[in-house]
C-alpha cells in the first residue's frame, strides 16, 4: 500500500490534462481568486496576477493576464515566462500560471504550466466590448484593425470549423467589409476597384458553395453572419449594384477558376 502511495506521489505531478477551452471554469464576479487562478471570460483565458475579487478580466489589466493564443513559440529552458505567456512543447500548448522557473519537461510541470487547447489558437482573436457605441453602425467595430468586423471574426474563429475553413471565412469577411466601407465613397470608385471588389466577393461565394457541395461534413460560413442587419443588407445591394455598372465583366468572369485558392 505504501509503495502504491509512494508511486502515486511521484507520478501524479507528471500527469497533465489537456483542457479544452470550454472545460475551463467561467469567471464569477463574486468569487475570490488567488494568484495563479485561471478562468475563461469573453472568449479568452485569463490568469490572476494577484488575489482578486469583483474585478472582471480585461485588456491591459494589472489584475489579469490574458493567455496568448497567437504567435506561440517553442518552449526554451533558459527563458523566463510571465503569467499568461504560452508555449508549445511536444505538439502540445501550455500557458504559464506562475513565475516559478519550472521546466516544462519536469515532474512538477503542473506547478507552472497548464496544458490547454482553444478554438482560436493561432488567430488574433479580438476582444469584444458589447458596450462599444459603434456596434450598430454599418461598418461596426474592428478592434484589431484587420479589416474584418469583430463579431463575425469571433463567431468564425470560435466555431468548430477546420482551420482552413476559418481562414477562408476570414478572407471572405474582408471582402464583405470592403463592400460596407465603400458606401460613402462609391461614387468615386474606379473600374479596377469595382472589378477587384466584385471578383473577391464572387470568389468568396463560389468558394463557400464549393465547400458546402463537396465536403461531406464541413459547413462553410454564412454571408448572413456578415450582412446581419437590414441596413447592412441594403448597403450590400446598393454598393454591389453601383460597382456592377463599372465592372469589367470579361475580366471578372475569366478569373473565377479555383475560387478557394484565388480568394
Amino acid at each position: 500500500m505504501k509503495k502504491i502511495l509512494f508511486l502515486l506521489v511521484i507520478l501524479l505531478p507528471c500527469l497533465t490534462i489537456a483542457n479544452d477551452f470550454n472545460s475551463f471554469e467561467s469567471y464569477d464576479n463574486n468569487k475570490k481568486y488567488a494568484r495563479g487562478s485561471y478562468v475563461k471570460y469573453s472568449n479568452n483565458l485569463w490568469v490572476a496576477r494577484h488575489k482578486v475579487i469583483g474585478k472582471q478580466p480585461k485588456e491591459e489589466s494589472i489584475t489579469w493576464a490574458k493567455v496568448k493564443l497567437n504567435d506561440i513559440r517553442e518552449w526554451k529552458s533558459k527563458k523566463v515566462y510571465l503569467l499568461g505567456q504560452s508555449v508549445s512543447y511536444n505538439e502540445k500548448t501550455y500557458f504559464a500560471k506562475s513565475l516559478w522557473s519550472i521546466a516544462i519537461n519536469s515532474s512538477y510541470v503542473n506547478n507552472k504550466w497548464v496544458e490547454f487547447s482553444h478554438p482560436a489558437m493561432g488567430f488574433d482573436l479580438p476582444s469584444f466590448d458589447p458596450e462599444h457605441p459603434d456596434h450598430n453602425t454599418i461598418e461596426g467595430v474592428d478592434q484589431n484593425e484587420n479589416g474584418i468586423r469583430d463579431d463575425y471574426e469571433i463567431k468564425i474563429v470560435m466555431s468548430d470549423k477546420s482551420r482552413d475553413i476559418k481562414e477562408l471565412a476570414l478572407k471572405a469577411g474582408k471582402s464583405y467589409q470592403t463592400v460596407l466601407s465603400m458606401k460613402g465613397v462609391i461614387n468615386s470608385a474606379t473600374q479596377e476597384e469595382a472589378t477587384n471588389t466584385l471578383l473577391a466577393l464572387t470568389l468568396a461565394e463560389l468558394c463557400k458553395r464549393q465547400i458546402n457541395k463537396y465536403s461531406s461534413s464541413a459547413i462553410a460560413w454564412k454571408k448572413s453572419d456578415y450582412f446581419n442587419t437590414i441596413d447592412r443588407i441594403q448597403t450590400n445591394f446598393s454598393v454591389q449594384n453601383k460597382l456592377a455598372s463599372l465592372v469589367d465583366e470579361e475580366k471578372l468572369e475569366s478569373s473565377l477558376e479555383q475560387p478557394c485558392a484565388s480568394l
Partner: protein
Amino acid sequence: MNEIKKITLALLTILATSNALAECGANVDNIESFYINGMFTDYSDYTSNKNALKNFLVAYLESEGFNPNIQGQHNKDENKLSQIFEVVRQKWEDDDADDEIIKFLNNESLNSERAKEAIAEFLQDISIEYQSTISEEDSQLAIAKLENILDSCSRVVLISHSQGNLL
C-alpha cells in the same frame, strides 16, 4: 461614272448580304443561353449562378450544340428593392429582424418549418412589391442583349429565376 458607282454599290450590298447570310447560316445550329436572376440576388450571387450554369453546360450540354459561354443580365431592380427595404424597416424599427428573414434577404437556403413560416409571413408583407415585374431599365438592357443574340441567327434558351421570369 455614275453607273460604275451604282455597280460598285450593288456589288458591296450583295457581298455584305451574303456575308451576313453566311454568318447566319453558320450560327443557326448554335444554342445560346441567357440568364436573368430573381429578386434578392446581388451581383456576386448573379455571377456565381452564371458560373454554375456555365459549368453545367460544359459538363452536359456543350456536345449538344450549347455555347458554354452563357450570357445574361443582372436584374438589380433598385427601386423595388428600396421599397421592400422600406417595408422591412417599418416592420423592424429597431433593425432587429428575424434571423430567417436575414438569411432570406441574403439569398441563403432555408429548410426548417420555422423558416418557412417566417418567410411566408414576410412575403405577405411585401407581396405587392415582390410580385412586380423587373424594372424598365433592367428589362430594356436584357431585351437589347437578347435581340443582339437573335440577330446573329442563334437559338436562345432563356434561363430565368423567380422575378426574372417577369421580363
